[in-house]
């Protein structure tokens, strides 16, 4: 009897393990030197202050919507504005794509108190969720002349505090 129930239990667990699960909503990880690590889904991004930009890459007009990068970093507790000083000014964000492609932005490059440059964490294009080689998340830097930092298939933002050893300097 015991053996049968054990076998039954095993079968049940096996069945539940094999049962197709609804795919987990794709999430963007915000990690590293942040006060609050985040896992952001499209629903989370929808709840943050929304912004949009129209790009004309090779003349093709596309309207991207999402959240400014500085809003995302603020939510993760990364110093911004007047707080962005001292060591924080030597911090940078590694944006990483699903295939391992990586680009870097310094925190000041993303901060509207430092610069008018804009970097959008986009989740829709022309009103439709980003898919395939575009999404589900990407960065859009409409003011940059080359598209290479407008990283697609974005999966992770990692904040790194740079500590360059300087000879003779005290840490």
């Amino acid at each position, binding site marked *: 009897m015991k053996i049968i129930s054990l076998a039954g239990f095993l079968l049940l667990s096996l069945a539940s393990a094999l049962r197709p699960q609804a795919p987990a909503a794709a999430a963007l990880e915000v990690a590293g030197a942040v006060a609050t690590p985040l896992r952001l889904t499209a629903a989370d991004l929808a709840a943050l202050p929304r912004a949009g930009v129209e790009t*004309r*890459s*090779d*003349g*093709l*007009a*596309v309207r991207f919507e999402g959240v400014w990068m500085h809003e995302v970093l603020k939510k993760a507790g990364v110093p911004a504005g007047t707080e962005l000083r001292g060591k924080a000014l030597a911090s940078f964000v590694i944006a990483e*794509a*699903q*295939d*391992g*492609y990586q680009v870097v932005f310094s925190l000041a490059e993303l901060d509207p108190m430092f610069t008018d440059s804009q970097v959008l964490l986009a989740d829709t294009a*022309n*009103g*439709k969720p980003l*898919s*395939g*080689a*575009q999404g589900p998340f990407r960065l859009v830097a409409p003011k940059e002349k080359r598209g290479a930092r407008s990283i*697609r*298939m974005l999966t992770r933002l990692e904040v790194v505090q740079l500590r360059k050893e300087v000879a003779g300097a005290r840490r």
Partner: protein
Amino acid sequence: MKRVRQGAFILALTLIRLAAEPFDFRLSPGFPRPPVPENNPMSAAKVALGRYLFYDTRLSVNGKQSCASCHRQEFAFTDGRARALGTTGELHPRSSMSLVNVAYAPALTWADPKLDSLEQQALVPMLGTEPVELGLRGQESRALQDLQRLPLYQRLFAAAFPGEDDPFRLENVTKALAAFQRTIISTRSPYDRYRYGGDESAISGAAKRGEVLFFSGEKAGCFQCHGGWNFSGPVRYEGGPSVEPEYHNTGLYEKYAAPNTGLERHTGNPQDAGKFRAPTLRNIAVTAPYMHDGAIASLEEAVEHYSQGGRAAANPNRSTILRPFRLTAAEKADLIEFLRSLTDEKLLKDPRWSDPWR
């Protein structure tokens, strides 16, 4: 009487409005208009004339070939051959290029950075002697007289070049041919419907996986040369910057023999040897064989070539973008499926660009 006057007034207004309206390229939403030279504005009449001329064998020395002989609509305006064949049987050293979206190209032909006008380019196949393509050199007046004899052309030239006493000039032939070619625009492939139209069902799962490989620099990374919406690298468009063409040595040969030395032939710089323009990959599935001389027979072979980082990887001018990459057999199939999703079936059959003489 009053009614007639009113009718004439409305007709005049309509004509004025039609003349003022920009030419309709029938672009998909968001796509830019191609640049049009100021001295050759677009008109429906000019495009109509250009279409007849494009398909007219009177524009060859022996009446055997037209532009369309090497630029066939069913092959996305290529000819299906490794190397093009001229009207007198002379073999061209290079492969006929697609005319699809040629209006956006920052430079024409495989490797001539100075040739960026379709009007100028039309003279190359007509009058060129190395090689002879249509073989019209010295026969220009005879050909123009042949055209002039047709009542059809009397009407078409007059409509295309209104107000000209004698519109039967070679310059007008090239203008009409250029205007016609500017209309050959493809933005309606299944991939366009998927990517820009938001139609998730427009392409297969395999093509979607292939898209990721295509755009991944860590995988195949094809987009690094065949980038942008035209899959060709830089494009020019109305109101856009005057971008320069890019040329790449894809490591096809250890040494590129004359006359196929590519950009070097035009710049004289040995470091430019073997560099050619990246053609659009739109409709690439119907434009085999590939490369400037048709050396690669199939898409499978092309993917193989690039996965080795170029079969002649030792070429010193080989693009630094190229490096070997490893794809599984399934991934290669996905990549090719993606390339097939760039075929615009409507373009291959659209009567706007078909032979009007048939």
